[in-house]
């Protein structure tokens, strides 16, 4: 069944339209706009669900010249992601009005949330590289706005900027990767460069094309940077915990269930295209490293949301690793865990919101034993938390088990060193169990004495996580239900050789089972030393700051700011001589190399016959120039400058240019007059010391040489006699210009347009002078 273009477009566009209308909606509905959002999300969900089972690509023309179109593919993988986004969107919108009650800036909040949802649906469905990138970047922008929701809060600003930096910056790498892909695809597939559906239809050909041009690894790496940045993979994971400055519903929606999974989603999407040994090494390694390190960091967390954030990064690592393994089971792990994690982690974030909302704190050491205060919440947490820990028979167990299988399979394939993968995965899982238990202790541990009265949450806060927990429970009990409904077919999209997927509780020994057993056992045992482990991990970044999450970022950003401000004041040091030196020196170098490059200098011939009076006059001009340089006072200098002007006037006379001579002299005199008028107002100034005369002299000589060469080169290139244009003017001046003064005819007739410009310059000079003097106090009047 082919998807319906209209439905798809509406599903993508509806949230954007709603976002655009939010200011209006907010005026109408006030804080209840959230429910409108929920309705929109629900509508999207419904529209997308209506496409369930369809498979194919539809396109809306956008930029035909570049063959860019709004192409959308509907398949199980896309639907899985889009449905998750809109489904959880419904819950988050429904949760928000109560949670965000009384906050200001809610219109902005809902607009961004809606736009975000549209973007996610767009990314999920996009089948055009540019369209994909479009929605991809929009998610980052929305995330920026939402993380910075508390605009007055410094940590919000900090986190928002960091997220922007990492995700949008990562997006740039992705863009380059996509362009490389498009370049090759354009060649290989004959045209359809940006058509992702077409590219994915010919994965081998395109990959071969990439390899042929030695572009495979760069493309892979660039896309990996983009995806890794978005999905908080080490070493770009640090932004995610900071992003928890966003309101909790945002964290649940963007930073656990949807946006951060965009990277994973893309990895899954491109998996059939790029899968290879390099792919395996890259993503399996990065994914497992992220999974383990972030799990450990979650253990070290002090704040509920921080714990959940690191946990999210860790689970994202798990998914990336799963997709990284080239076996089918790896893809199964990736897809299924993406699904499971979305459900349980969104629930947990919403729970964290309830706790923070009702207990007034998010600090782990100030919370505990809340099960009596919040019994339903406790039940929700138990289901979701155990799923997160990967304890059988909860849903997380199944998908993690698939990953373990994939690591083992890979290890068999790779030999001894390959066993690092299962080992690391196991260690990561130990930490996962540890922090999950710690999270559960919020409800089931000892209630700290300082904790005050904790209210029951309103039903509207509780319902969404409860629904998610219920779904988790369903998947836990009937994992096959999910597999059959969507996961299997989604996996089929991400693999090249699909085969049917089985999940369930293990019935026999396997290395994966053993790994799970070790993880759970070791996790449970070490929980008793939680305090020491927690403190131990915390102390590492204290001892070695570069290991700390934000350290590199801070160093880099502060360094940039510092460098920027220092560079600007070094380069633009406020000295005209510096400016002129650079400008002129560059001009010199460029020009001389230009003449050298064409051997124009070599070919120059030099004439020597001279007209003595012209020579004399110009000599005086130069001598006057020297005298100006050496002149002891301003008056002396100006008078000397006048000689220069007079000599040039004589030169004009001797060169048979009476008009020029006249103009030169009258202008010279006026300049002299203006100089004197100015000198009246200023004191004599004598330059202190000789300073950098040598340096200036070198530059001046350089400029002189440049001008010298220009004259030599051009005069020798000059053809004999007058130019055609000049001849034309001479011939036509009388019969067609009606004047015998050819120069004047040129000025007022042949080239009167130049003269008009010249006039304008004179007029502007006059009004500029008035303005300069009139606006004297203007600066103060500002």
């Amino acid at each position, binding site marked *: 069944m082919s998807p319906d273009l209209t439905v798809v477009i509406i599903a993508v566009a509806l949230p954007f339209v709603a976002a655009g209308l939010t200011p209006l909606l907010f005026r109408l509905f006030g804080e209840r706009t959230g429910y409108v959002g929920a309705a929109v999300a629900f509508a999207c969900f419904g529209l997308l669900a209506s496409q369930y089972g369809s498979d194919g690509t539809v396109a809306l023309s956008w930029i035909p010249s570049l063959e860019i179109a709004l192409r959308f593919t509907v398949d199980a993988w896309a639907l899985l992601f889009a449905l998750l986004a809109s489904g959880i969107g419904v819950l988050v919108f429904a949760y928000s009005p109560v949670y965000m009650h009384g906050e200001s800036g809610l219109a902005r909040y809902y607009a961004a949330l809606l736009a975000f949802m549209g973007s996610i649906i767009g990314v999920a469905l996009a089948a055009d590289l540019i369209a994909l990138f479009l929605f991809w970047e929009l998610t980052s922008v929305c995330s920026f706005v939402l993380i910075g929701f508390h605009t007055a809060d410094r940590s919000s600003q900090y986190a928002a900027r960091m997220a922007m930096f990492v995700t949008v910056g990562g997006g740039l790498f992705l863009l380059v990767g996509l362009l490389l892909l498009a370049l090759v695809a354009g060649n290989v597939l004959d045209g359809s460069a940006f058509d992702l559906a077409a590219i994915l239809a010919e994965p081998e050909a395109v990959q071969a094309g990439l390899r042929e041009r030695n572009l495979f690894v760069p493309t892979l790496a660039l896309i990996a940077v983009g995806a890794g940045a978005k999905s908080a993979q080490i070493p770009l994971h640090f932004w995610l915990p900071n992003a928890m400055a966003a309101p909790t519903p945002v964290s649940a929606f963007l930073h656990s269930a949807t946006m951060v999974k965009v990277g994973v989603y893309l990895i899954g999407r491109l998996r059939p295209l790029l899968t290879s040994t390099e792919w395996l090494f890259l993503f399996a390694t990065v994914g497992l490293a992220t999974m383990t390190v972030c799990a450990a960091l979650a253990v070290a967390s002090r704040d509920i949301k921080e714990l959940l954030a690191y946990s999210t990064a860790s689970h994202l690592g798990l998914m990336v690793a799963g997709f990284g393994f080239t076996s089918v089971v790896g893809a199964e792990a990736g897809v299924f865990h993406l699904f499971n994690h979305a459900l349980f982690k969104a629930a947990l974030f919403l729970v964290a919101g309830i706790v923070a909302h009702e207990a007034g704190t998010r600090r782990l050491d100030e919370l505990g034993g809340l099960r009596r205060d919040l019994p339903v919440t406790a039940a929700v947490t138990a289901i979701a938390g155990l799923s997160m820990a990967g304890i059988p028979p909860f849903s997380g167990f199944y998908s993690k088990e698939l990953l373990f299988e994939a690591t083992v399979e890979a290890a068999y394939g790779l030999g001894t060193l390959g066993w690092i993968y299962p080992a690391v995965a196991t260690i990561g899982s130990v930490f996962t169990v540890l922090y999950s238990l710690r999270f559960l202790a919020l409800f089931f541990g000892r209630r700290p004495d300082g904790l005050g009265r904790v209210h029951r949450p309103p039903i509207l806060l509780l319902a969404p996580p409860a629904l998610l927990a219920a779904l988790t429970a369903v998947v836990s009990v009937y994992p096959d239900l999910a597999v059959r409904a969507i996961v299997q077919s989604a996996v089929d999209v991400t693999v090249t050789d699909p085969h049917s997927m089985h999940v369930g509780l293990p019935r026999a020994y396997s290395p994966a089972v053993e790994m799970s057993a070790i993880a759970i056992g070791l996790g449970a045992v070490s929980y008793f030393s939680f305090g020491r482990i927690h403190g131990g991990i915390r102390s590492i970044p204290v001892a070695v700051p570069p290991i700390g999450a934000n350290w590199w970022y801070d160093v880099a950003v502060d360094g940039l700011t510092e460098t920027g401000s220092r560079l600007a004041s070094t380069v633009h040091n406020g000295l005209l001589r510096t400016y002129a030196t650079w400008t002129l020196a560059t001009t010199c170098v460029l020009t001389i190399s230009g003449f050298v490059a064409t051997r124009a200098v070599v070919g120059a011939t030099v004439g020597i016959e001279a007209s003595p009076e012209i020579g004399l006059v110009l000599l005086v001009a130069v001598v006057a120039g020297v005298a100006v340089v050496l002149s*002891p006072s301003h008056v002396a200098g100006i008078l000397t400058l006048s000689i220069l002007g007079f000599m040039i006037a004589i030169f004009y006379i001797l060169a048979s240019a009476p008009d020029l001579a006249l103009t030169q002299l009258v202008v010279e005199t006026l300049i002299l007059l203006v100089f004197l008028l100015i000198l009246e107002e200023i004191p004599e100034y004598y330059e202190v010391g000789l300073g950098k005369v040598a340096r200036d002299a070198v530059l001046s000589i350089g400029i002189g040489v440049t001008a010298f060469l220009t004259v030599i080169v051009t005069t020798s290139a000059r053809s004999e006699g007058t130019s055609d244009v000049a001849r034309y003017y001479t011939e036509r001046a009388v019969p067609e210009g009606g004047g015998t003064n050819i120069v004047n005819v040129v000025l007022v007739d042949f080239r009167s347009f130049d003269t008009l410009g010249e006039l304008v310059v004179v007029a502007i000079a006059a009004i500029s002078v008035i303005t300069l003097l009139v606006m004297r106090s203007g600066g103060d009047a500002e």
Partner: protein
Amino acid sequence: MIREAIVIALVLVGSFFLTVGTIGLLRLPNVYNRMHATSKPTTLGTAAIFLAGFVSFGPGSEGLTSLIGIVFLFMTVPTGAHMIARSAQRIGVPFLEGVTWPAESSQARRTDETGEETDE
């Protein structure tokens, strides 16, 4: 032929006096004395050359303009010289040894500074 001869003569005379003026400018001891050299011979020299122009182009046409040139020179060169001399005296350029200032009036305007300008 006669006209040419007159022109040549006038050009020679003019050149001679211009040269005299310039040499005077260089040789004479201070600005007041130099001014004697420049005001008289250069005016006459230029006038002679203008006169050559009159002879060459005249009596009508640009010859007339040459005459205006002469008149103009005689009107302006002495005034210019007077302005310069006055300025020299006002800013206190000293006269030669033995020169006395006829102090009938306005002695006060003789500025106090003596000696050459500070710019040397």
